[in-house]
């Protein structure tokens, strides 16, 4: 319990510090070029990494061989390329995944 509260507190304070940082530091000075560059490209790398992180528990060589994850991720990608509706893509993907792991690949 205490450790959980501390985890949340650290995350909350770090987030606040990040959000206040530009107001405290870059008020008058110019933002360094390398920081601007990383600000442009790093988010793409981070989000791709987080997708892998979400799927890290998938077992390719046993169990379902990652099929439910593969099908659901493919569904999200195709649906999003087609309709470009974030809520629709996430909602349909999640429901499809829940059905896959609860009903089909039991």
């Amino acid at each position, binding site marked *: 319990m205490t*450790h*959980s509260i*501390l*985890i*949340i507190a*650290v*995350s*909350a304070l*770090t*987030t606040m510090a*990040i*959000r*206040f*940082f*530009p*107001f405290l530091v*870059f*008020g008058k000075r110019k933002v360094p*070029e*390398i920081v*601007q*560059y*990383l*600000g*442009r*490209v*790093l*988010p*793409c*790398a*981070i*989000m*791709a*990494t*987080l*997708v*892998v*992180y*979400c*799927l*890290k*528990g998938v077992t390719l060589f046993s169990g379902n061989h990652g099929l*439910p*994850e593969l099908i*659901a991720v493919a569904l*999200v*990608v195709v649906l*999003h*390329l087609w309709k470009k509706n*974030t*809520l629709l*893509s*996430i*909602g349909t*993907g*999640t429901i499809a*995944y*829940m059905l896959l*792991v*609860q009903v089909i690949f039991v």
Partner: protein
Amino acid sequence: MKKSQYTKEYLFAFKQTIPILLGYIFLGIAFGLMLQDAGYNFVWAFFMSIFVYAGSMQFMLVTLLAGAQSLMNTFVMTLFINGRHLFYGLSFIEKFREMGKAFPYMAFSLTDETYSVLCSLKVPEGLNEKKISFLISLFDHIYWITGSVLGALIGQWLSFDSTGVDFSMTALFVVIVVNQWLENKKHFSTLTGFLTALLALALLGPDSFLLPALACSTILLIVFRKQADDKPREEEKAKA
């Protein structure tokens, strides 16, 4: 009867936030369900959404809480996931400073979604822009808190099999990657992140690959700047 100035400002601010209302309630519910599933009830959802108030990070926090991760890991993960917020504030340095007492709250509550609404905000003549900006930030925050508490309560009251509900986090990140892919001409950064993560996962295993992967990606992006950057450097622009 003419609508009062007060009502007009509230209505205008509310209208700007309707897309966020849908998004935050829905994602908030997904987060609340996942949190409840991990053994943390609506009280936790309420306080996390008030004080952390960051979508992707809160999803990640469920995983960090469930695995009782170290505070150092939590700190570094937050830096990586929310680091992008560093750049949002840059667009509003002057504007928020002029808002006086509301300034700290405006800086604190600048999420991806609020940023996008405030960026495209055009206030009609006669309405108070500062007040409307504040209301937009506040409304978005309330939607997120409401959604996450609702999700936790749904998870608590309705006993349905919620196995697989955590896929909403995966789906969220997949959607973000697809959007980034469509927006950018170069995909070097996305591919670097993806392949580095896969390699790190294969070499280091699921429990400790994340931070090394992010660190390697950062270094690779600095080294291969020519390949990764959509915009040419200042000096190259000058030469051209």
